[in-house]
């Protein structure tokens, strides 16, 4: 059953992505309903899959890299629905669905164990910490996407050539605001997640601790520079993409260290 749910979610996103590509090649870049429908379908199927895994594990399914990738894809889609409706950023879905699809494909194609790990005695604070951390990473992923959209729109405006992308992407000021606010949102959630981790008194591998701390400090500095110092929106967008790349590279390592412990 889980196999079908995950395959269904992936196929939904592939269909949405293919539809977008067809529209783009036909010169239409307007946000379409098909893309939104594919995201809604994929999110529903993914939610059901995670719920079923949670039932088997009798806990939040976050104990393997396979679970983590699925949960991060789910959190990114969830934040897209929350943020997308708040900011009404045109094309945010078009940029978000490839990332969610990438995470799902990575989970399914990489040689990872899919077997649910049944719960023994588990601390709810640790589960809260892990779930919240991944939701924070979802916010950072969306901040990176807003940053990427900012850079594309900045390039379009600097090129002075017009074109469909320029007309369909949101105003650059709104993208800069979304980028900054999503970084702040992610940082707040990550801070709460870390506080929960400390409260649980969990034992953490030194490398995992410093990697997580680096991410927290990096985003903290970014927020500080943006709020106090006039860090230009373009530099913020670039740095948010660099930081997202760092998270995507280190996440498997952190998870590996956690399970190894």
């Amino acid at each position, binding site marked *: 059953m889980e196999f079908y749910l995950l395959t269904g979610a992936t196929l939904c996103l592939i269909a949405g992505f293919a539809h977008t590509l067809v529209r783009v090649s036909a010169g239409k870049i307007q946000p379409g309903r098909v893309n939104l429908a594919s995201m809604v379908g994929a999110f529903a199927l993914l939610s059901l899959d995670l719920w079923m895994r949670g039932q088997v594990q009798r806990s939040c399914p976050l104990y393997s890299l396979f679970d983590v990738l699925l949960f991060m894809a789910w959190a990114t889609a969830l934040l897209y629905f929350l943020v997308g409706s708040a900011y009404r950023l045109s094309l945010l879905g078009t940029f978000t669905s490839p990332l969610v699809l990438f995470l799902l494909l990575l989970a399914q194609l990489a040689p990872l164990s899919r077997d649910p790990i049944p719960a023994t005695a588990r601390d709810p604070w640790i589960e809260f910490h892990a779930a919240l951390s991944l939701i924070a990473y979802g916010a950072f992923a969306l901040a990176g996407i807003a940053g990427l959209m900012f850079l594309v*729109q900045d390039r379009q*405006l600097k090129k*002075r050539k*017009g074109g469909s992308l320029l*007309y369909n992407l949101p*105003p*650059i000021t709104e993208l*800069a605001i979304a980028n900054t606010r999503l970084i702040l949102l992610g940082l707040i959630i990550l801070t709460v997640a870390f506080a929960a981790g400390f409260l649980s008194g969990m034992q953490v591998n030194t490398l995992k601790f410093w990697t997580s701390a680096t991410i927290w400090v990096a985003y903290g500095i970014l927020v500080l520079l943006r709020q106090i110092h006039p860090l230009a929106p373009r*530099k913020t967008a670039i740095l948010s993409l660099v930081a997202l790349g760092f998270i995507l590279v280190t996440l498997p390592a952190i998870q590996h260290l956690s399970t190894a412990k």
Partner: protein
Amino acid sequence: MTILCAGINHRNAAVEVRERFAIGTHELEASLSSLRRIDGLFGAVIVSTCNRVEFYASSVCPLRAMDGLRRFLVERTGCTDLPFYSHDSLPSVRHLFRVACGLDSMVIGETEILGQVKQAYSAAADHGATNACLNKLFQQAFRVAKQVRTETRITRGSTSVGSVAVELAGKIFGDLSGRKVMVLGAGETSERVARSLVSRGVRTVIVSNRTFDRAAALADSIGGLAVHFDHWHTAFDEVDILICSTAAPHPIVTREKLEKILQSHRERPLFIIDLAVPRDVDPSVNTIDNVYLYDMDSLEQIARQSIEIRQTEVVRCEQLIDRHVRDFLTWMHQHPTMPR
């Protein structure tokens, strides 16, 4: 029942001819009553805009109705040589649909004409000058116009330098309300752009010109402030959009000067519209972060691009229109004895 159309437009008549035939709002009721009295004519709608004067009518005796319409126009204008085109059912229906879609306009795809056609139809309906056939015809025209707008790119982009500049401002700032504009050089084009920006909600306009009186006059007319040309940079704080159109032979906004001014500008974007030839702004300014510089050439290129996109969409629009024309004619054949 036959649908008739007769009229003149910007293609076959110069403005001095069109203005002789134009029917103002105050004359509309009387004109519609006169048309209604024409023997064999059951309903009429008059579309009178700056680019066209057109009469749409339904009749069972098209020749008699056309004669009556001709007599009406000769009596009204005293002109015996009428430069009017006239069509019967199929081309008339097609013509109205093309007009409503903006395909017959001076600027292809412009949307103002649809509002004008809607207004003309609603005025005729209010005066009891329409019948079932014309009601159906105009409703179908509004439907096809809506479909053409949503399914094709016929209204894509802006087609004039001024509207491109305003659209770009929207792509940089989103909502323009509360934004501050500075106009350097009170030329005609810069005035037009400034006025468009004000109509989109811009908060403050500062005008600076070598001749202070000219700056003061323009500032007065658009509700802005005038500053002496030598002090324009001191009033630059919080300016979001800079419009330049001075007659200076060398750039007056250089990279060095702007970088110094922007130190207090924090991270807000600055949109510079350089309408001057020779240019007022050093092109290297465009490489500064958060500064977007557009000169005449780049604005015109974007406008041309929009026109080209619209032209490529005409074929698709015509296909949609053809389908609706067929639907309407089928409906007419199915209702040969509709109420008059």
